[in-house]
């Protein structure tokens, strides 16, 4: 029991990422309303971003920006390479996720434009109603 608890606590970020991912995926597939699908899509993407950002976290590290030149008590003066490495969070996942967020915005914009157009064509944005109208 204790082990399970420890496992859960040690990786709780991954668990919550999983929950968000599944919420998003489920919404994307099963929601009838197109805007809901889009919201699900955004949640799905942000869940993945959460996962990546979690990779980049390091215990006891600080944000990946070094600053020289002004005395700050909390700032650790990093001398050796090893200290340097342990002292800063991993910047690579952050970079990747910046890109992913931007891609997400682009997709969101296009999706919403399409939703507007669909509404203009069919007068509804419920998937089942659209399918019925297509059949006619």
């Amino acid at each position: 029991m204790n082990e399970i608890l420890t496992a859960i606590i040690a990786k709780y970020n991954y668990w919550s990422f999983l929950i968000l991912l599944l919420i998003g995926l489920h919404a994307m597939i099963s929601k009838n309303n197109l805007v809901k699908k889009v919201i699900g899509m955004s949640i799905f993407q942000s869940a993945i971003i959460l996962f990546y950002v979690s990779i980049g976290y390091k215990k006891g590290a600080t944000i990946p920006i070094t600053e020289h030149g002004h005395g700050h008590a909390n700032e650790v003066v990093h001398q050796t390479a090893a200290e340097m490495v342990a002292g800063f969070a991993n910047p690579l996942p952050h970079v990747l996720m910046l890109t992913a967020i931007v891609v997400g915005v682009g997709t969101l914009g296009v999706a919403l434009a399409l939703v507007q157009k669909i509404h203009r064509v069919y007068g509804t944005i419920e998937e089942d109603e659209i399918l019925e109208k297509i059949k006619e």
Partner: protein
Amino acid sequence: MTWDASLLWQFDFLILLMVIICAVAALTFKDLITSAVVFGAYSFLMCLLWTEMLAVDVAFTEAAVGAGVSTVFFLGTALHIKRRAKD
């Protein structure tokens, strides 16, 4: 692993809880405006989460994009479509 998985684990738990509540709520509301607004709140909280995980740049971007612009986009779209969702 011990409890000090993160320096600010207390924040972590609460924010994650709120994030999940917001995600479910945003998808459950039948009014699209409400969904959009709650989704905005979801983005706020996500941004907090990332700040807390030392990803300042990501948080900055999410603050700019998720909280601000994409909510506005959703609202702009809602203006041109039916507000009510079936599910």
